[in-house]
């Protein structure tokens, strides 16, 4: 009788301890990582030229309302250009995102660079601008919205070669570097450049003859 009672308690303990829990390490939640998105069915070989911003948009959502400013980021934008050029794309225009032209320039692709510096989780809003500037090239293409973190660098590529009705520029590709531009990270620029290189490395389809 005593033995069966003991066995019963052992069984209860086993069941109680048996519920597996996921303890996701902080390195997964807060570590540096690179995410890329490719619009379905896009043939990047059909594009040959691109335009890129001269400044990086800085998005601070600390107050709950995103505040956009711009700052030069020559190493980061240079890394995007270096990768694009090595894939065969030709740079034809540089755009100041603070004072963009009224109509899109004559290029196949538009590239925007931005970073999230807010302390809260932020989501890229769907309130696209007319054709340039802060993130959000419209929502007509499938786009799985992801939660960005503080220090997330976002490189977006829009389709200028196939104008859409209305102020919409379809997003063809995006690369997000998580936690690569955090204020406390002294090597942030190098990490950001490494994230851009990784974004292109894991996008071998991003090439034109």
């Amino acid at each position, binding site marked *: 009788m005593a033995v069966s009672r003991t066995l019963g308690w*052992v069984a209860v303990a086993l069941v109680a301890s048996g519920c597996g829990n996921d303890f996701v390490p902080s390195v997964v939640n807060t570590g540096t990582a690179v995410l*890329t998105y490719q619009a379905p069915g896009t043939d990047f070989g059909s594009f040959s030229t691109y335009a890129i911003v001269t400044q990086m948009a800085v998005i601070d959502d600390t107050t709950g309302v995103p505040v956009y400013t711009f700052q030069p980021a020559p190493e980061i934008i240079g890394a995007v250009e270096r990768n694009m050029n090595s894939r065969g794309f030709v740079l034809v225009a540089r755009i100041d995102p603070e004072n963009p032209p009224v109509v899109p320039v004559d290029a196949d692709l538009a590239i925007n660079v931005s970073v999230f510096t807010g302390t809260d989780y932020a989501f890229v809003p769907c309130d696209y601008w007319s054709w340039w500037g802060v993130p959000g090239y419209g929502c007509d293409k499938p786009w799985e919205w992801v939660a960005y973190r503080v220090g997330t660098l976002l490189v977006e590529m829009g389709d200028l070669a196939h104008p859409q009705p209305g102020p919409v520029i379809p997003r063809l590709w995006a690369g997000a570097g998580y936690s690569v531009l955090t204020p406390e990270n002294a090597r942030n620029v190098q990490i950001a450049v490494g994230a851009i290189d990784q974004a292109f490395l894991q996008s071998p389809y991003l090439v034109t003859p």
Partner: protein
Amino acid sequence: MTRALSRAATFVALAASLLAARPARAEAYLDDWHPYETYWAVGWSAAVPMTSLRSNFISNTGWLGGGFDIRIGVVGRLAVGVNGTWNWFDQTISSLTVQQGQLTFTGPVYRSLGAFTALATVHYYFTQSAVQPFVGVGLGGVWFSTLQQTVNRPQNTSTSGLAVAPEVGFLFNVAQRLGLYLSGRYQFNMTTIPGVKNPQWACGQAGLAYYF
């Protein structure tokens, strides 16, 4: 010299007596007097992932696991019964590239796999001695839940399928109606989890059994 020889002889005799020792009153499971005895056991199960489960999803040993067995003798030293086993695997990979639909991700990845297996079992005990070697096989169902998390993007899946699990082991009769078991089990699961067809693992199992 004589004293040394005497000490050596004593040591050899003691070792021999330990090796030849049998529990004084321990009875074997399914002995001639109890052919229809029931067997109740709980124990620990540690599992080592194999084949594509190891190469494509998780390579870490799942140290967390446990299960129970209920058996009853039916004829000779043959017993039929049921088994429930739960195994848990998890692993953090520092950098991995994974595809998630239109998204490609490179960075640290956390993966976990929980499996609950319910089997109908048949076991045969070769002897009626203090140490009873046995073989068995189980057939039943398995239920999986998996998690793959990249940054703040968890991906959960769950699935189920058939499971086949042959087993070999030893039952050590240590006291009246009480035994300790040690066994190895291979489990083949007929289902698919992300990136893995027919996940398989080998388990080491140990526990306490009571029979009456």
